């Protein structure tokens, strides 16, 4: 071996800045060299030095309190803890799988800027520093502001960090165009109906008094498939305790499998059933007259209105025998007030009908006298913790929570949001932001932030969304994984996973209201950053630094916690602070307070405010839209091991459930010649094709509809496990019906036909993909 120059050659590029010689070498564990990596020392993580820290889960948005175990610098296990009212020591499969998302090798790693001149969606990027990325964004935002005004930048957000990206930053920047899919693509009708009936929202954790109820009627509510941890615990405990269960669903859901009565209702006719129940309760005078007399307004109008909705009328519509309708109504009444019809979460089903259905559901509950009573709906409010002292934002924080608080521009100089006037409610409607990006009406939307929202797997009419993205001057995606929509962005900002970050306090409206905190268990991997940091740094670049007067999140959290006599340090030791609630009307009456924040102070059957707006003051049944013949109504729901479209690259969860299948009634399958587990295509009424997807030939569904679980069918090659498996319901949703009350998008007005004979895509096993992924 020879080297021309005796000296050590020095290359400046060899200084990476990753490692440095520290102060002292340790005792020699590995004298002489490095241990052979192919023989890692044996040992189980739980035999090592395990430390734990508190967090709350972000695998779905139920946000259960969890304890995170770290060993050897790596998160090994997460668990619930007993002191937390949401997890109560337990976690669902998705929560349990959190470490597999943090250590997903397909994660976004560095800020990326789309290569100049390349097309959106072509996926050509260059690496950038955070500073450079922020400069790029700020420059574009200023240009949009100067040409179109601040309102022309829209924000969409989902997840804990959406407080920053769908509320705070838009409020500071000055745009009312901030929205969460969790409103108009999920809960909007139930919230609008709730506010206008009870004077209170539902807001997040559905306040069902499971622990006290004796009789439960679920209307298409997929408990057990949407594994909302606490709800599932209480539901299962109620059943074990002997509570009776009735399930109304076109599909024999998991919950239906636990029911004493399954009513396989014709899809889109639930409102007729609910109205008939109102009819029976009133006609047979088995409603809670005392409760109705004391707490409600408009009963006379309701009684008169409901007289037309006889069980026989409903039978013809719902295909549920009138006798059954009567029997269930009588059973409910016999168990009242400990009989409850829980409100579901995702209720944007048929659009025009949704708010009517939700109000009718609430009315049955009121007639049973259960609202604010043990065994019915309890009353709850979030605990109050002061905000960090900062100047007032130019515009009220925009999108609100699941409840979707109103965004009123009021006297401010800002233009109202682009969806204003399309519906009665005041929360923004995320899907209504898309059209203005294309048409420029009522004014152009030229910039978009997508924080944690999978806009191709939530907003219907995916092609329209893509078209809209092409019209933008700036599209920024903040995410954890290279989802398809992320790889369309001009700037991609990698967020760290929740196990690697602090977040704002979570203030939970619950039977026992509580406050929970999230602490990072490990340092962020790669160059990923938490949402609070991204929002603040970007805010400073945008000249909005005055609204971010804290140096770091620790200072911010500590200051907020000090307002309730706690501190960040104390919170690190306990994770959760539980408050006392006032769950029942009696608790409020003792304090001489009225929980119902309606104009009348009563529970309102008849809504003057709807009447004034030219809407129906009482719920009505509207004939459902019908599909073309030979097509099935496309229903969708959840897999218990997945959340929306965001967990489909998690190796552990994908091993549990690696592709969805289309549920098709056995007799329909025989007619079509489709066999069980055969691959088929789904083609919707507008000719959009999804698949290949397996047929699940089953007795568990009616003949007039098919069902798939949501979130599959990713078209994102960077997500090696998720890509190309199963079919996407969202891509088949090429039409929706806007709920004129809430702005919700009714998504179940899409029909598909089954096209047999799709080729077997020969999907590799998840184990095989995991192996191959490491071998490039």
């Amino acid at each position, binding site marked *: 071996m020879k080297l021309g120059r005796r000296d050590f050659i020095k290359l400046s590029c060899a200084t990476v800045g990753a490692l440095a010689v520290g102060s002292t070498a340790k005792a020699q564990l590995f004298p002489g060299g490095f241990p052979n990596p192919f023989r890692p020392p044996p040992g*189980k*993580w*739980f*035999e090592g030095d395990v430390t734990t820290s508190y967090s709350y889960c972000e695998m779905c948005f139920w946000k259960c309190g969890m304890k995170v175990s770290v060993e050897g610098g790596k998160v*090994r*296990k*997460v*668990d*619930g803890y007993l002191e937390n009212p949401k997890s109560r*020591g*337990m*976690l*669902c*499969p*998705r*929560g*349990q*799988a959190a*470490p*597999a998302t943090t250590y997903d090798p397909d994660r976004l790693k560095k800020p990326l800027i789309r290569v100049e001149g390349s097309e959106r969606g072509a996926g050509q990027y260059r690496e950038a520093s955070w500073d450079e990325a922020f400069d790029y964004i700020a420059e574009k935002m200023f240009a949009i502001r100067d040409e179109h005004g601040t309102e022309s930048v829209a924000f969409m957000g989902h997840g804990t960090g959406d407080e920053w990206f769908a509320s705070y930053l838009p409020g500071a920047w000055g745009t009312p165009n901030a929205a969460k899919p969790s409103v108009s693509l999920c809960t909007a009708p139930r919230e609008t109906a709730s506010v206008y009936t009870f004077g209170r929202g539902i807001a997040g954790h559905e306040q069902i008094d499971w622990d006290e109820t004796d009789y439960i009627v679920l209307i298409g509510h997929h*408990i*057990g*498939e949407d*594994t909302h*941890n606490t709800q*599932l*615990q209480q539901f*299962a*405990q109620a*059943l*074990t305790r002997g509570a009776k269960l009735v399930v109304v669903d076109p599909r*024999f859901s*998991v*919950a239906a*499998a*636990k029911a004493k009565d*399954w009513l*396989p209702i014709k899809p889109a006719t639930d409102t007729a059933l609910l109205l008939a129940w109102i009819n029976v309760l009133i006609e047979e005078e088995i409603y809670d007259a005392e409760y109705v007399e004391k707490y409600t307004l408009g009963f006379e109008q309701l009684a008169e209105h409901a007289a037309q909705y006889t069980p026989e009328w409903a039978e013809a519509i719902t295909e549920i025998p009138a006798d059954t309708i009567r029997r269930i109504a009588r059973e409910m009444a016999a168990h009242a007030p400990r009989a409850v019809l829980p409100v579901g979460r995702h209720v944007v089903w048929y659009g025009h009908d949704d708010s009517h259905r939700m109000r009718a559901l609430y009315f049955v509950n009121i007639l049973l006298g259960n609202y604010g009573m043990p065994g019915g709906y309890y009353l709850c409010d979030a605990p109050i913790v002061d905000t960090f002292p900062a100047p007032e934002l130019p515009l009220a924080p925009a999108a609100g929570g699941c409840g979707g608080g109103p965004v009123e521009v009021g006297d401010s100089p800002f233009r109202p949001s682009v969806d204003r006037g399309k519906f009665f409610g005041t929360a923004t409607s995320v899907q209504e932001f898309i059209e203005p990006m294309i048409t420029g009406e009522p004014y152009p939307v030229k910039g978009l932030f997508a924080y944690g929202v999978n806009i191709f797997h939530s907003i219907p009419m995916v092609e329209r969304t893509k078209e809209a993205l092409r019209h933008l001057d700036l599209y920024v995606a903040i995410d954890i994984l290279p989802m398809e929509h992320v790889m369309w962005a001009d700037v991609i900002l990698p967020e760290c996973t929740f196990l690697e970050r602090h977040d704002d306090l979570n203030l939970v409206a619950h039977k026992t209201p509580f406050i929970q905190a999230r602490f990072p268990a490990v340092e962020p991997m790669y160059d990923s950053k938490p949402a609070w940091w991204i929002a603040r740094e970007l805010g400073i670049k945008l000249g909005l630094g005055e609204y971010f007067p804290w140096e770091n999140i620790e200072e911010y959290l500590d200051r907020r916690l000090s307002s309730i006599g706690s501190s960040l340090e104390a919170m690190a030791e306990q994770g959760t602070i539980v408050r006392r609630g006032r769950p029942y009307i009696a608790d409020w009456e003792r304090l001489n307070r009225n929980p119902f924040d309606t104009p009348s102070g009563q529970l309102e059957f008849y809504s003057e405010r709807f009447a004034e707006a030219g809407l129906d003051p009482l719920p009505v049944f509207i004939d459902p839209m019908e599909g073309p013949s030979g097509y099935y109504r496309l229903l969708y729901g959840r897999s*218990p*091991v997945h959340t929306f479209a965001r967990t489909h690259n998690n*190796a*552990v*969860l994908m*091993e*549990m*459930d690696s592709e969805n299948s289309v549920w098709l*009634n*056995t007799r329909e399958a025989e007619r079509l010649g489709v066999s*069980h587990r055969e691959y088929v295509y789904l083609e919707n009424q507008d000719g959009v094709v999804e698949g290949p997807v397996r047929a699940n030939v*089953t*007795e*568990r*569904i*009616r003949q007039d509809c098919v069902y798939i679980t949501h979130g599959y069918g990713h078209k994102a090659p960077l997500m090696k496990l998720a890509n190309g498996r199963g079919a996407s319901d969202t891509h088949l949703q090429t039409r929706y019906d806007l709920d004129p009350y809430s702005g919700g998008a009714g998504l179940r007005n899409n029909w598909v036909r089954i096209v047999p004979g799709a080729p077997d895509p020969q999907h590799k*096993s*998840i*184990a*095989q993909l*995991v192996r191959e992924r490491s071998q490039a």
Partner: protein
Amino acid sequence: MSRMAMAIDLAACVGCAACSVACKHENEVPIGVNRLWIRNTTIGTFPNLVTEFRPEQCLHCENPPCVPVCPTGCCFVRADGIVDIEPMKCIGCSACIAACPYDARYMHPDGYVSKCDFCKHRVAKGELPACVTTCPTLCRSFGDLDDPNSDVSIALRGARRVDLLRPGLGTGPKLYYLNAPAKFGLVGEEGQRSS
């Protein structure tokens, strides 16, 4: 002496797989093999249906067929009744995998057989197995059969009916299924084929 056992209340179980995922992380079970899985089976015709959600894992039999066929003594029954494996004695002959009537055993990529061990490391600390702790439906009970006050003994006494998997083989499982939803007990036993 004690006899550690588990009972799963099928009336409560919704087959959500939280147990399976918890097990995966707790025991670092490699992707591709499982210690615990969920079998959901539906019988009947529309609209008269029964769906059974059944978690399955090693049953820690009192008369385990996997133990006597082991040529090295690496498969054994502990004093507390947990059927265990000593990986450093395993030659990977798979005789125990062949003998297990419940598909509970798998070959670990590191070259030894592995399976559910009732989270013996947690049991040693007085904790419950990871699957029991995390279950949102509280369908699992665990404890010592010889202790009449253990969770599992109480659950067994309170059950409407108790079923065993493949009882005809005489394995004496110590994992009991309570309150099976179908009138005749567990569905999908041998002799019935899926169509």
